[in-house]
């Protein structure tokens, strides 16, 4: 179909939840209030590693509080993230623990009539700890004799021993690296480090639980996946899934922080079941910061190339400090290998990754799932290689990138597919032209207090984790579509909108397929009872996978619609066409080439009702058999103040290949947002630990964690965003994803620009003013 014929896809519209959000009427978990509701607080470990000798809740109970300790919760180990198939899932968590392994881990909880009373009750719970030695550095943790966090963990159903705190490891080989490095004319090796960033989503992780009279439970919570929360709660509390219902509510940001079932959810459920009253548990900001963070990484990368710039071999060694629990380190390592080898062609490669336990906050997915880390390393190396070869860094990238028709395995070695749409060349060539790359990019020493530089980097993310083979990762979605008796349409999906406008895109897919006006498509409020399974909104999969499934189901409803219309219009279904009539506010069905044989979707549905033909509806699931890469490039300009060490990003150009753009203004929003979080990742954000107390040095304060504000970014006219002219043949109306791609290359582009400005190659982020000054001082000394 010609793009120009779309009436909904690619058109700017007011987001469907917009009015509710700008008027304050949108309901988030933290806004849910139920009759007779208790408020809960959690007792969290003050020590990074300890065993609990005794817990005394008697005084708290005297106040009327309901208390739970590890003895009151099911004694089983679980994984809070269940996207990997069960046989490859590592389980090391408990609802409440006798052995806290990081400061802030939950030990006990209380619920009472008011928050005030719950807080008082909490202060009366007495805990006797026996402190255990703790370890904070992953390299220390792997040494013989280091304190062991977990003696055993479950791998699938099997109990396995943990050796040297190694939670998971992977080795992936393709070709023969010895041979590859022998063929190389230039070999070089560097080590990169990235920080432990806090998600800082605006809504703290929360849950409201209502115990039901039939022994079931209804749950409202901050999550990216209502079905996985339901399945885990069913498993932990041994309740049939038909009695566990998780409601979909708006989510106040996520960025990966709610990709798993948050630790507060089973605590809230256990309290509600014991209290036989609804319970609300809202994390404080401090508790939230002690719950999860981004995977920090240590990446050693060795590359071999020919003198003409062709890459021939690569060896990557990765160490991930996952903190106290293994949320999903095994797939993470596979994906990190995948991000690496899917950027540039490497005939011979070896990847060795290890995930290591330490007594810190557990790390989990955060926008990119290892991709920003790998892209920072690889895209820094590409600039270094280009400099050594004295060629333009853009030319080097064009020579080596994995593109159209090539096999890639972005989501790990079991998720292989072929690239069928690719805007890399367009974004690199046009982007360079738009920023005046040829004039601005000069490899020369800059002078003065303020030094300016320009840098670029590219990257990608997969649209979901689909592939022809089933692999180790579950990835499919499902939907229900029904056409109402007035020609409007309801669709039901468990897919979450994390704020990016995923569900608006889905509404447009329905409107486009059925040729009904967009304002006649309703997004139904749903829960796990009224929807079919959807894995999660993660992996940049919303539009491509969730939207792909909805497109399929809408097509099935359309088949039924045309069959009914054919009875009315007395013409075979395949002679019927559809078009939108915005004036009538209807989709129209007509017999092509025959005057007067035209009927609205509403009339078809109403006639079907009156004649008792039934409702026009469909339900089905879809697994996408590829996960097309959404490509991304950033060109960033900076000013570095050599006296203060402050790096100011002054200009940025983002160029994205999202296939067909579905929501233009919201897609731009993804790029602005990705740039902002990427700059924070590159310049400022990290969590650090006091190794005596095991506490965060930020103390759980946002102010001391440090985030960029509205004041620290390029002016609005200095940020440009562009989309390539691409069409993904396997996507709904040609669309693929964007979310994580928008962040992945930012840190590398920024670091490359800083190098261009001051000649210092930062291999560790964040590049704080202190680190800039230190590096400049070091350079002066070397020059003396």
């Amino acid at each position: 179909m010609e793009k120009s014929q779309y009436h909904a896809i690619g058109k700017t519209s007011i987001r469907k939840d917009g009015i509710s959000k700008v008027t304050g009427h949108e309901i988030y978990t933290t806004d849910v209030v139920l009759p007779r509701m208790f408020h809960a607080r959690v007792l969290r470990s003050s020590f990074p590693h300890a065993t609990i000798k005794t817990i005394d809740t008697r005084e708290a109970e005297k106040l009327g509080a309901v208390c739970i300790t590890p003895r009151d919760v099911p004694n089983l180990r679980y994984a809070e993230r269940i996207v990997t198939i069960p046989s490859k899932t590592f389980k090391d968590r408990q609802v409440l623990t006798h052995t806290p392994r990081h400061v802030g881990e939950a030990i006990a909880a209380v619920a009472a009539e008011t928050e005030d009373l719950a807080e008082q009750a909490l202060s009366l719970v007495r805990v006797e700890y026996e402190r255990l030695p703790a370890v904070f550095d992953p390299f220390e943790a792997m040494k013989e004799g280091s304190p062991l966090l977990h003696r055993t963990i479950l791998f699938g159903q099997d109990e396995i021993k943990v050796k040297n705190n190694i939670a998971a490891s992977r080795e992936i080989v393709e070709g023969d690296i010895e041979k590859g490095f022998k063929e190389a004319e230039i070999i070089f090796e560097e080590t990169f480090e990235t920080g432990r960033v806090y998600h800082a989503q605006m809504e703290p992780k929360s849950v409201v639980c209502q115990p039901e009279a039939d022994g079931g439970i209804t749950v409202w919570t901050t999550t990216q996946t209502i079905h996985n929360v339901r399945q885990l709660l069913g498993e932990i509390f041994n309740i049939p899934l038909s009695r566990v219902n998780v409601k979909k509510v708006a989510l106040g940001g996520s960025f990966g922080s709610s990709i798993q079932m948050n630790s507060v959810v089973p605590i809230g459920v256990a309290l509600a079941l014991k209290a036989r009253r609804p319970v609300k548990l809202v994390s404080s900001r401090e508790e939230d910061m002690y719950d999860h963070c981004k995977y920090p990484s240590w990446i050693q990368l060795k590359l071999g190339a020919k003198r003409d710039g062709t890459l021939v071999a690569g060896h990557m060694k990765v160490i991930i400090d996952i903190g106290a629990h293994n949320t999903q380190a095994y797939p993470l390592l596979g994906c990190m290998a995948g991000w690496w080898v899917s950027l540039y062609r490497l005939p011979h490669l070896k990847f060795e990754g290890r995930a290591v336990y330490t007594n810190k906050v557990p790390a989990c997915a955060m926008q990119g799932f290892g991709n920003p880390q790998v892209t920072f390393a690889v895209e820094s190396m590409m600039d270094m290689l280009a400099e050594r070869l004295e060629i333009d860094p853009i030319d080097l990238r064009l020579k080596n990138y994995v593109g159209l028709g090539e096999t890639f395995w972005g989501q790990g070695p079991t998720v292989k597919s072929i690239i069928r749409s690719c805007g890399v060349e367009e974004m690199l060539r046009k982007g360079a032209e738009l920023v005046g790359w040829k004039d601005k990019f000069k490899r020369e020493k800059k002078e003065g207090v303020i030094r300016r530089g320009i840098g670029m980097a590219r990257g990608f993310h997969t649209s979901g984790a689909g592939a022809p083979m089933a692999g180790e990762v579950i990835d499919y979605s499902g939907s229900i579509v029904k056409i109402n008796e007035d020609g409007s349409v309801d669709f039901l999906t468990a897919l979450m909108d994390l704020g990016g406008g995923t569900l608006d895109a889905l509404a447009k897919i329905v409107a486009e397929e059925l040729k009904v006006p967009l304002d006649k498509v309703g997004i139904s409020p749903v829960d796990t009872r009224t929807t079919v399974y959807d894995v999660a909104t993660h992996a940049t999969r919303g539009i491509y996978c969730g939207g792909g499934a909805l497109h399929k189901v809408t097509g099935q409803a359309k088949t039924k619609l045309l069959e009914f219309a054919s009875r009315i219009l007395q013409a075979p279904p395949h002679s019927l066409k559809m078009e939108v009539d915005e004036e009538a506010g209807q989709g129209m069905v007509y017999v092509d080439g025959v005057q007067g044989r035209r009927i609205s979707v509403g009339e078809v549905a109403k006639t079907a009702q009156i004649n008792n033909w039934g409702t026009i509806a469909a339900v089905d699931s879809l697994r996408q058999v590829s996960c097309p890469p959404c490509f991304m490039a950033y060109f960033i300009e900076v000013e570095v103040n050599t006296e203060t060490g402050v790096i100011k990003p002054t200009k940025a150009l983002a160029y994205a290949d999202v296939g067909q753009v579905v929501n233009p203004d919201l897609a731009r929003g993804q790029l602005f947002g990705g740039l902002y979080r990427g700059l924070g990742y590159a310049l400022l954000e990290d969590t650090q630990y006091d190794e005596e107390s095991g506490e965060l040095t930020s103390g759980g304060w946002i102010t001391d964690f440090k985030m960029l504000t509205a004041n620290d970014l390029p002016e609005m006219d200095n940020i440009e965003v562009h989309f390539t002219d691409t069409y993904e043949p396997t996507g709904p109306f040609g669309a693929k994803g964007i979310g994580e791609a928008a962040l992945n290359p930012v840190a590398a582009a920024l670091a490359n620009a800083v190098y261009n400005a001051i000649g210092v190659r930062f291999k560790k982020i964040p590049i704080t003013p202190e680190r800039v000054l230190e590096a400049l001082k070091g350079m002066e000394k070397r020059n003396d």
Partner: protein
Amino acid sequence: MKKQITLTVNGVKRELFVASNELLLNVLRDHLELTGAKYGCGIGECGSCTVLLDGEPILACLTLAMAVDGSDVVTIEGISGSDGRLHPVQESFLNHGAVQCGFCTPGLILTGKALLDENPQPTEGEIREYIRGNLCRCTGYTQIVKAIKDSSVKGKA
């Protein structure tokens, strides 16, 4: 110990019994069921709880209800017209794609409104400076700054 206070909330006079340690945010959210002001940190770091107190943007999570006895409070629920017509800043946020997850949106719209009431034609720098206490993790602020800037232009026309 509870005490009676009077607040005019979104134009309606309210007599309320509040405890001495009760925060304005809790009074709005729990007593009056106005949940547009959000709890994001509880310690004045994020701006999600912003409301207008006698026209000034304040952090409701740091304000004791008793301390503002007699004041005029405007929340996000109170700035659209009685006919449901949106305030120009609300309208502009929608038209510029300035809303993503929406959790910071009420606070940012009220802060934007307060700025425009004070300074109808702010520069971009003035807007960024004024809203820097309101954190947004989704948008990167670009479309929010545009939305505020554009509603100031419209307001003048």
